């Protein structure tokens, strides 16, 4: 094959997993948080320990905004998928910023992120030094969230499910974020060339080569993580249902049918053959950008056919299984952002969720309008009242 570049996935999965497993499990937790001109917050500070955090306050108080700020500690567009400038406080004196100290198995790390004047991309600092890209965040934090907007996850298009799976993959393989970015960039470049009708075949081939190598690596990581989660869900007990998971798509099938290098060749050939069609659609006929995460319940019934509450319970089951696996493999549970989760579960499931979170020893951030819903957590959690852009620890 022409072109340098080593195949990116070999040996890249689960770096340091073996060593981490030997150490005693720990959690990721935010010990200090500072929001500057972030949505409803002008300047807010919070100190926390490793216990779950309950954020309560009336509608519009800023609870979800706070979770969104935390979601920016991971690569991507955050839990609202907002445009960068959208988080600037209306009438504020400049761009937004979120700074946090995160405690993890490797000790504390200071993370900073936000918009900077004149920059189109979100800026990231790690221990004060500017990082090349947001992907650097995945090396330090893993954040997983459930929001009311995700209630429709199983019924909507595949895009949100793909992103959900990718966030789960980041926890296993921090380089996944970088690979997705590189793949997307190659796909955009190719689309631009095809659109302009320039059609320099050697240039297209160079981009398709990159798409094939990174695309297969992306699909392989998703497939692997979906399989691990499927196995982890099987051993789960309690009132949360067993979820069956599988990553599905053309590239995933190529991987099931033969070795990765062969899958790369098939992607390369498929893209070369679809140039004319792709020029018309503006997309790419095959690749991991078209994959899906298939979820069904223990009976094999697709998740989308379950009741609203059942779908929510499946999501919770997946997130809990993921957190348990993370603790085993990487020696740290992820940060869990659970927006309005208590309100959507019946009392039995709510109690089971609290038990599970405490057993995980995860720093889960829970929101609700009513603190009473969280009363069973008692002193095992820290309660923070959110009002008028201020955070008041109780």
């Amino acid at each position, binding site marked *: 094959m022409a*072109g340098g*570049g080593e195949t990116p996935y070999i040996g890249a999965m689960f770096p340091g997993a073996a060593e981490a497993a030997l150490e005693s499990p720990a959690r990721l937790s935010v010990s200090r948080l500072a929001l500057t001109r972030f949505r409803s917050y002008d300047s807010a500070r919070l100190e926390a320990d490793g216990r779950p955090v309950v954020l309560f306050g009336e509608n519009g108080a800023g609870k979800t905004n706070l979770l969104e700020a935390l979601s920016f500690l991971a690569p991507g567009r955050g839990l609202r998928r907002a445009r960068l400038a959208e988080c600037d406080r209306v009438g504020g004196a400049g761009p937004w910023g979120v700074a946090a100290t995160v405690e993890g198995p490797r000790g504390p790390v200071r993370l900073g992120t936000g918009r900077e004047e004149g920059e189109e991309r979100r800026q990231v600092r790690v221990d004060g030094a500017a990082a090349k890209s947001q992907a650097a965040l995945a090396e330090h934090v893993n954040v997983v969230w459930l929001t009311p907007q995700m209630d429709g996850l199983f019924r909507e298009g595949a895009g949100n499910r793909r992103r959900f799976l990718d966030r789960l993959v980041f926890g296993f393989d921090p380089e996944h974020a970088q690979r997705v970015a590189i793949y997307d960039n190659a796909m955009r470049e190719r689309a631009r060339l095809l659109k*302009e009708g320039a059609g320099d075949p*050697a240039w297209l081939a160079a981009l398709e080569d*990159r798409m094939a190598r990174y695309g297969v690596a992306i699909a392989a990581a998703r497939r692997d993580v979906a399989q691990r989660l499927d196995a982890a869900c099987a051993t789960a007990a309690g009132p949360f249902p067993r979820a069956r998971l599988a990553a599905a798509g053309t590239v995933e099938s190529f991987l099931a049918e033969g070795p990765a290098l062969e899958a790369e060749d098939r992607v390369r050939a498929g893209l070369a053959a679809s140039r004319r069609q792709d020029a018309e659609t503006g997309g790419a006929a095959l690749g991991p950008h078209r994959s899906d995460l298939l979820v069904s319940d223990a009976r094999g019934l697709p998740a989308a056919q379950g009741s609203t509450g059942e779908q929510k319970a499946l999501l919770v089951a997946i997130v809990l299984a993921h957190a348990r696996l993370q603790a085993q493999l990487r020696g740290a549970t992820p940060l869990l952002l659970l927006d309005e989760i208590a309100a959507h579960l019946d009392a039995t499931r709510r109690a089971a969720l609290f038990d599970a979170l405490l057993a995980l020893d995860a720093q889960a951030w829970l929101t609700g309008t009513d603190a009473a819903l969280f009363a069973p957590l008692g002193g095992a959690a820290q309660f923070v009242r959110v009002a008028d852009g201020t955070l008041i620890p109780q």
Partner: protein
Amino acid sequence: MSDLERLVQLLSKLPGLGPRSGRRAALALLKRRETLLEPLAAALAAAARNIRACSECGNLDTTDPCSICADARRDPGLLCVVEDVADLWAIERTKSFAGRYHVLGGTLSAIDGVGPDELRIPKLVERARGAREVVIALNATVEGQTTAHYVAERLGETGASVTRLAHGVPVGGELDYLDEGTLAAALKARRPL
């Protein structure tokens, strides 16, 4: 816009500087008028007047063709393709390359409108027809490698043998940051592509 604002704005555009460091640089210059600001202004004016891109290879020099292209002792049958003049300098520092260069001036990017013509690839193909070997010494970054893939493809028709640096170059690495020993070794152990 005031003169000072303009100065800050221009300095902020330098690689590695942003608005904040641009302001700091402007102040540092103004505080050292005789020892820094005026000599720098003179050096900038001289550079703007005298330094040109070599029409043959893209190197920067006060003569065109540049001193490397004009040097009869350098092997015209051996070409080395680099992304940037900084990479050319890095290879020159190793004192282990006796051929000539071709500076692309960047990497392919459809979104930024940088195509084969902007990278002077037609000129490279023309030069390669008369060459024995072309060494592709692009950075081991994703963009560098995609461009290398493309260049190798285009050179296929020229009859020159196409080689790349041996993998002493770390993945994601930029030549400019390599020490001379590593780069010299990677150059010596180059292999067919």
